[in-house]
Every structure is written in C-alpha cells, then in structure tokens.
C-alpha cells in the first residue's frame, strides 16, 4: 500500500510536526512498532513523512491509537493526529484492509459494531437482559449518505478492494 505523502502538504495540515527533533521517543514507546514486524513508527513517521514522500510501510492499522506517542512526546508534536489523518486518507482512497471497511459498513448498516447471532439472542434471554433488534436505526445510513461515507464504501466495493 503506497500512499504518496508530500512533506509540504503534511506540514501545512499538521504544523506541530515542525517541532519534531526526531528524538525517537515515540518509536521507543510504540507497541505496534515493537511487535508487528510490518509497522515501524520511525519509518512511517520520522523518515517517510520527512524524507521520502511516500508511506511504504504496510498496515497502518497495526496502530491501536494507544496515544502513548502523544503522551510521551517531549515536544508536543501530536504524532497520533498525523497517523490518524494518514489512516483516514488511506481509507478514503480505498486503501484500507477489508476488515476495516467491513467493520465500518457493519456499524452503518445495522447500528452495531458486530453482527448479532442467534447465540447472542439465546444467551441474552437466558441472562434475562433485553433482546437486541437486528437493525437499530436508519439514521446512520442517512448520516453516512450526507457525509459521503456511503459513496466511499460503494466505490471501494466496486473496485473489489
């Protein structure tokens, strides 16, 4: 997944990046960098954004948005805002993993983040808690139409991504 990113554009959108002294504290505290094997905050943020102009790290979504890069940065660079913006840009361009798109679609179409199974309904009945309607509301579909999210999801689907 290549997401072309120009230094000038990124700095314009995220002026706090200019304070970054590349001290690597964010990278040293990044669990996605430590464990994933395919995501490296040093490359995705420190080097790619500043030097190469293209994000060639796979799997931006290994980042759990734990915010420790934000909390521990000594210079208030707001790293996480850049990462979230990159994820959003990738999603809008149809470059997010299928599992990400499916979860968003699931939420919009039913109002629930996960599909309801008969097992869930049976267990809820056994526990004497209210049952769940399979579809919560049409409101989310209308909201997604207004924001353009529906269009993005349809386009991604038609491209087979």
């Amino acid at each position, binding site marked *: 997944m290549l997401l072309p990113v120009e230094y000038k554009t990124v700095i314009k959108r995220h002026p706090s990046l200019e304070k970054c002294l590349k001290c690597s504290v964010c990278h040293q505290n990044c*669990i*996605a960098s430590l*464990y*994933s*094997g*395919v995501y490296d905050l040093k490359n995705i943020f420190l080097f790619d954004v500043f030097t190469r102009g293209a994000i060639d790290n796979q*799997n931006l*979504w*290994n*980042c*759990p*948005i*734990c*915010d*420790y890069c*934000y*909390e521990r940065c000594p210079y208030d660079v707001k790293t*996480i805002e850049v*990462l*979230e913006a990159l*994820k*959003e840009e990738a*999603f*809008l361009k149809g470059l*997010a*993993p299928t*599992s*990400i*798109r499916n*979860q*968003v679609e699931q*939420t*919009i179409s039913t*109002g*629930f*983040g*996960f*599909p*309801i*199974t008969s097992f*869930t309904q049976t*267990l*809820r009945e056994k*526990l*004497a*808690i*209210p049952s*769940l*309607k399979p579809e*919560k*509301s049409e*409101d*989310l579909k*209308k*909201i*997604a139409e*207004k*924001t353009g*999210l529906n269009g*993005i999801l349809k386009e991604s689907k038609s491209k087979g991504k």
Partner: protein
Amino acid sequence: MIPIKLPHIESVSRKVLGNLGIELVDIDAFTCCPDPVVFGAADRLTWLTVAARNIALAEEKGLNIITVCNGCSQTLRMTNKTLKSDLELKGKVNKILSEVGYEFLGKIEVKHFLQVLIEDLGVKEIKERVNAPLNDLKVATHVGCHLTNPSEIMEFDDPEDPVVLESLVAALGAETVDYDLKTQCCGVSYAVVGQRKSLNILLRDKLTSMNEAGAQCITTGCPFCFQQFDLGQLLSAKEYGLRFKVPVLFYSQLLGLAMGYTIEEVGYTYHKVRDESFEKKVESR
C-alpha cells in the same frame, strides 16, 4: 462489543451498578458509539456525527451517559469535548444531524463506570457494599489505553502510573500486584488486521509479566482488553506453551464477587480461560 459478544458482563454490570444505587436507563435508539480505533480513524466526520447523535439522545432525556467500555468512553468524551469547544465543527455536525431530527447541545457529561465509582461514589461507599471481601486475592490491573489517553480528554488517571483501578480493587479487599508491562496496550488492533502471530507474542509477554509478579487474576474495565486476556490468552498459550493461567475478570465481575454473588452468577463460567486455584480461592471465602 459487550451486548453482542459479552452479554454476561452486561448482566453483572446491570446488577452491581443497580446495587450501588445507580439507576440505569436504557435508550433503545442508541447505536454503536462508534469505536475510536477503526471507525474513528476511517472517517472522522461520520464518526463525530454518529457519536453526537448518541449524546443528543441522552440530552433529550436530560441524562448523563455512563459507559462500560474504554472505547465508548473515549469516543463519546472526545466528541463531547470537541464539539463543545469547536463551534464551527459543531455547526457542521448539527447540520447533518438535523437531517435525522437531532441536535447536539453539549449539555451532558459522559463517564466510564470506573470514573463514576471513584468520583461520584468513592472508595468508602464501595467498601460498605462489600459482603464477601476478596482477601489475599492478588490482582493485576490493566486499565487500558483508551481510558487514560489522551489524558486531557479522559481525565481519569495518570497514564504513566495509573492508580485509580488499583484503589477500586483494594476497596474489594484484594491486593494488586505491580508488574513491568502494566501500561502496555493489549494490542487489540492486531486482532482487527489479522496479525495473530504478533498479537500472540505481545500477549505472551504481558501475561508472563503479570504471572511473574504473582497475579492470580487480571481485572480491566474494557471489553476489548478483556477479550485479549481471555480468548487471546487461550490462543497465545497454545502457541507458546504457557504453563500458567491468569483468568481475567471485568471489574464489575470482581465487584459482584465481593458483593457476595457466586462465580456462576458473575458469568465466570462463560470465560475461555478459567483456573482451578483461582476458583478455589474465591469459593473458599
């Protein structure tokens, strides 16, 4: 997550919060918050608008919102604070919301149930409701990233040295253990993108750290973290041949045990990771 995948946690949470005098009002029209990790990063405007709709629903009834999930807390608190301070964005969101008949006003507060317990009830009140203290039980607390970070939004605890959940566990008579990887994220995003191998390594390290500190169980107030330490522990243990088990209990389950509910009544029998020595300890009180 909880209503669909962990309804036993919903059930025990309704019971214990009710016992503490907290009246829970169901709002049928509530939808998924939506989650801050996947949805929040995918489309910020839709995420804010759906969250604002949930807040507007509570505002119509003049009620504050209490959550039992770190992700829900973060989404709703971030939306609440952002739209209260960014009037232009609030206008943009309300324009969309008006199409479905709602308006975000910024009149209510959103708190995680642990925040309600510590701020609105207090440790003393909780101690008074303990009928079966969890004496000598050693608990590893995992507060979870999305309840502490970003700290200026969540206003719950110090992300570097969280102590609130520890004090809530101590109120039940139990003992907390300090362990090296206490503030490390549970790695939920790995599960979403299918990075099972990486997740197994992360969980192996975190669980080993807890076990080496002497933990007999884990507690958390986040269902995603819960799943990592339950189903995730099962999968990691299988891959790495872990020779210990550290069952996880949601804080409301621990509270339920301390109030006098049985292990079955708090829903422990639905867990994937169960440990006989933990069960004996709890049942022998």
